[in-house]
């Protein structure tokens, strides 16, 4: 049921934890054989293993559907690069920071409208920006004053890339590492990247638990801290391009307090 909290014992019994992921490399990825990888699930998998939960089962979800899904107990935890923001900290129980990243823009080569920040997009009345629905970038754009009808909700990164290539949107915005991964795969000389976006904060994600699962979250934090200490943490995330130092140097409380 949705009422009672999930305990670690229950997860152990179940034998796996249910993760929500987004299929957005390098945060999260699904290999051709269906195996889940990416920095966030890899960290979670390792932490849970140490907690005595041998496996994780991931289901891909739209960003917007993740928190409602967590509230509906569709997943036990979100590990998808869902950055900490004050309202989100209200809605879920975050672990300590795991992956930190700045925001980036994907544009057509030349950046003819010279868009460097979300404010630039707000000022240029012809400029349109694509972003995942319910994601940080959508929020940043709206907060910077881009009107709703110029913020296009794009279902997935591949569609965002395609829409930039096709000229349907001027900018597609995601975290830096996601954009870099996308560009690498696209192998298209006619696109370029603006990173980091000026004025946009550096965000960190954490594993997001149900509000009532703080006990589980606390257990997760303990193991996470040990891994950060031992260097195990850096071994997992740095091959993906993330900086372990950035995550270690900040805390959940700082991130959640970081008002606009």
């Amino acid at each position, binding site marked *: 049921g949705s009422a009672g909290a999930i305990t670690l014992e229950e997860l152990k019994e179940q034998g796996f934890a249910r993760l929500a992921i987004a299929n957005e490399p390098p945060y999260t990825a699904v290999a051709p054989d269906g195996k889940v990888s990416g920095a966030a699930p890899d960290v979670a998998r390792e932490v849970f293993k140490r907690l005595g939960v041998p496996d994780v089962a991931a289901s891909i979800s739209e*960003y917007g559907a993740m928190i409602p899904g967590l509230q*509906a107990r569709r997943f036990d935890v979100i590990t998808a690069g869902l950055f900490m923001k004050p309202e989100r900290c209200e*809605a879920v129980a975050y672990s300590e920071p795991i992956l930190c990243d700045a925001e980036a823009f994907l544009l057509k080569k030349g950046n003819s409208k010279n868009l460097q920040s979300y404010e630039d997009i707000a000022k240029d009345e012809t400029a349109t920006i694509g972003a995942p629905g*319910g994601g940080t970038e959508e929020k940043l754009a709206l907060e910077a004053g881009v009107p709703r*009808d110029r913020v296009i*909700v794009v279902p997935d990164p591949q569609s965002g890339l395609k829409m930039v290539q*096709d000229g349907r949107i001027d900018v597609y915005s995601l975290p830096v590492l996601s954009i870099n991964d996308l560009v690498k795969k696209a192998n298209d000389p006619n696109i370029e990247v603006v990173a980091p976006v000026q004025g946009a904060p550096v965000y960190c994600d954490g594993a997001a638990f149900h509000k009532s699962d703080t006990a589980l979250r606390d257990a997760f934090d303990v193991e996470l801290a040990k891994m950060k200490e031992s260097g195990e943490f850096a071994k997992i995330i740095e091959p993906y391009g993330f900086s372990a130092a950035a995550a270690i140097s900040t805390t959940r409380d700082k991130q959640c307090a970081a008002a606009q």
Partner: protein
Amino acid sequence: MEWDWEFVWEIMPMLLAGVRITILATILGSALAAVVGLVIVIARRSANRAVSRTVGFLAEFIRGTPLLVQLYFIFYVLPDIGILLPPLLAGVIGLGLHYGTYTAEVYRAGIENLPRGQWEAAKACNLTPVQTWIHVVMPQAIPPMIPALANYFIAMFKETPLLSAITVLELMNQAKSVANSSYRYIEPITLVGVFFLVISLISVIGLRWLEKRFGRVA
């Protein structure tokens, strides 16, 4: 989770904007479907076997595959061959093509229900084929089709949420967007259901009237 009326009033304007797009897409899609169906029927009756077979197969194919995938195809694949359609237009074309294959079946049934004697009488009156269609076949075949056509247009209305997959900001997409930024699903999704139910019920009353007025294709 509790139902929150304040939140309902807050999101209402956005949802109403979505309703507007939904209705617009339905009307344009219906108009296109009506024409596409006619083209399919005429092509399938063509004496040219290559034309009738090809169109027949294409119609079967479109009817047998999901509209959602067709929309992805139109929106994301067609640009590769230089056809770049704005989201709403792509959506209307998808709806029109898909439902055109249904309206074609309605037209076909309506035309086949016309007694053979009417075609023969037209020939005995020495009307040309075009005159036969205009003065004898259409006036008799169309009225009984109207309820069945209307039925499909109501069905199309209920499928417009698919357009959210190609970034059209219709009712469902508005609701999702609201839900995404507020983390509340109950109110937006329920309201979408209410909107659909109300509009459908009104259309059904209209449909009953049409059925009384024009009768129905068997």
